[in-house]
């Protein structure tokens, strides 16, 4: 296939040889159905034996007996907000990963690459450690939401700084961004280290648990904080899916195809920073979803972002719902931080795929 052929197929949005768009559409439909099933599975399972079905029947006025108040609370105030948050976070992490891998043309890129995770950690740890002293006035004003707010602002600040550093004469260099990202993340980690040194025992336990990630703090309020950031960001990435495809040919070629690479970079980075920042803010650090999900999907449906992004959102959500169901029940009545489950299940699985299909993971 000559270069001109590639150009024309990309422009036409399909591949003459090995066209997988039909397969991709089927996969998306299957994933959507699976997501609905996982959502109800998530509502129906838990450490207690409260029956979601009975509670829904009662809410619909069809239940004749009387249910305990705690059953209603478990379903409506614990499981439901948690399942909704799981879907939001899973979709957000997986799509952010897919976008970053596309933008950086690097299979190792994950949402953390634009510094969001390191910045968010710094913000969260600042409030955990200094919440009662230096940051007390802010902490008192924000109450329960001091840590999520701190994490979100920290993530945003580092990303903006990185964007400034990597942009010269209106052009952002992704290579500079990659390297400067490592330096800025190291800097943020060092400042976090200073705070950790000053932390007391209780704060140390708190920040360890924060770093492992959890959906345990899921409340309706947290959903309301995260959704307005995550949903528009996800929609934004879907709009630039086609341009991300052309960017895979290199910036020069993309420009000839009518894509403004600078605009795509900016939109991608803003969307990823908002989605990941909000996710990390409400649920701490949940690893591996952003890497495993897009790679798995590329193996099946190919690298076309128009299908890859929605499929990533669905599979990310499914994966996180299952990981959370395990986290909630495996050591019941206690629960495991979800980051442990995603890494324990994700890392070996990813390695297995990697060894079986050597080479196929190259973008």
């Amino acid at each position, binding site marked *: 296939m000559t270069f001109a052929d590639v150009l024309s197929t990309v422009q036409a949005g399909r591949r003459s040889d090995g066209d997988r768009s039909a397969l991709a559409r089927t996969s998306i439909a299957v994933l959507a159905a699976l997501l609905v099933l996982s959502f109800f599975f998530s509502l129906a399972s838990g*450490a207690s034996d409260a029956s979601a079905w009975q509670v829904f029947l009662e809410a619909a006025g069809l239940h004749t007996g009387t249910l305990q108040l705690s059953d209603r609370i*478990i379903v409506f105030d614990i499981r439901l907000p948690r399942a909704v948050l799981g879907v939001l976070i899973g979709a957000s992490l997986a799509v952010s990963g897919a976008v970053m891998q596309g933008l950086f043309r690097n299979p190792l890129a994950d949402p953390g690459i634009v510094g969001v995770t390191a910045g968010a950690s710094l913000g969260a740890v600042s409030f955990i450690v200094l919440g009662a002293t230096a940051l007390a006035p802010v902490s008192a004003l924000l109450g329960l939401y001091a840590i999520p707010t701190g994490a979100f602002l920290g993530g945003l600040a580092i990303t903006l700084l990185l964007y400034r550093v990597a942009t010269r004469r209106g052009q952002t260099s992704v290579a500079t961004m990659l390297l400067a990202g490592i330096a800025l993340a190291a800097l943020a980690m060092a400042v976090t280290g200073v705070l950790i040194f000053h932390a*007391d025992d209780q704060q140390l336990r708190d920040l360890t648990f924060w770093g492992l990630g959890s959906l345990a703090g899921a409340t309706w309020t947290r959903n309301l904080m995260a959704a307005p950031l995550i949903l528009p960001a996800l929609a934004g990435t879907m709009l630039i899916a086609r341009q991300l495809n052309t960017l895979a040919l290199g910036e020069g070629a993309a420009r000839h195809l009518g894509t403004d690479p600078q605009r795509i970079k900016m939109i991608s980075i803003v969307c990823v920073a908002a989605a990941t920042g909000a996710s990390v803010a409400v649920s701490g650090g949940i690893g591996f979803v952003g890497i495993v999900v897009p790679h798995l999907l590329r193996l099946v449906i190919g690298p076309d972002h128009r299908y890859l992004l929605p499929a990533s959102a669905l599979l990310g959500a499914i994966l996180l719902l299952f990981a959370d169901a395990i986290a909630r029940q495996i050591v019941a009545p206690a629960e495991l931080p979800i980051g442990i489950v995603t890494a324990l299940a994700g890392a070996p699985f990813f390695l297995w795929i990697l060894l079986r299909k050597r080479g196929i993971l190259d973008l």
Partner: protein
Amino acid sequence: MKTLLASLAVSAVAIFGAHADPSSQRVLSIGGAVTEIVYALGEDGRLIGRDSTSTYPAAARELPDVGYMRALAPEGVLSIEPDLILAHEGSGPTEAIDVLKSASVDYVEVPGGFSAAGIDEAIRVVAEALGVDAKGDAMRADIAAQMDALAESVGTIAEKKRVLFILSMQDGRVLASGTGTAADGILALAGAQNAILDFQGYKQLTDEAIITANPDAILMMDRGGGHAADSATVLGHPALAATQAAKDGALIRMDGSYLLGFGPRTADAALDLAKALYGNDLR
């Protein structure tokens, strides 16, 4: 949707209107000291669960474990169906506690504090919540008498020994206690002086600071199982070896939860520590 709104409304009411029912028969105890107090009051028959820090007495380990006290999962807690939760102060996270209160489970926060007064108040709160005030008062009087006797005997010590508490020694790094810790509190009760007053909490100490502090004795937790550094390693540490404590071979080891638990056994622990420090000098 109606039910959802109703349950949200109930949440709001329950958060402000919680008060313990002293006849509760299904009690969940969060925090090592709280669990010890419940056992010491002889009310352990009403316990149905504990957190992962509640490891004493051994029988407590048989109870279902709801996880670490600061990372509680609301559904896990509700699944063992408690009607009263006795939680050490600092239990959380706050969102989990709010959900539990909204599920109309009585929630009583037990105050902490590394002093005799702190223990007394914790026992009072637990006994009141369980409706056994008389037993609680007897136990408080008993402990107060022990504490008074202890204070009297350590009061005669002419020169307080300066003690370095070492939390851990990994790779030769000494993690020592400053002020405001349980270790600092037990040293005060035992009539000793903490050798490190320059910082709060547990921090890594430089070798020079160890030599400058020159403690008369070293106190460590006895964790067993080869986890803790052995005596030769501790006293052979280059900086520690230069201290008075190493010259006298004054290395004291005590069980961690006994020494730092700040519960019903603390008066005994402080007395044991004082005996180990002062031997025959103690009246």
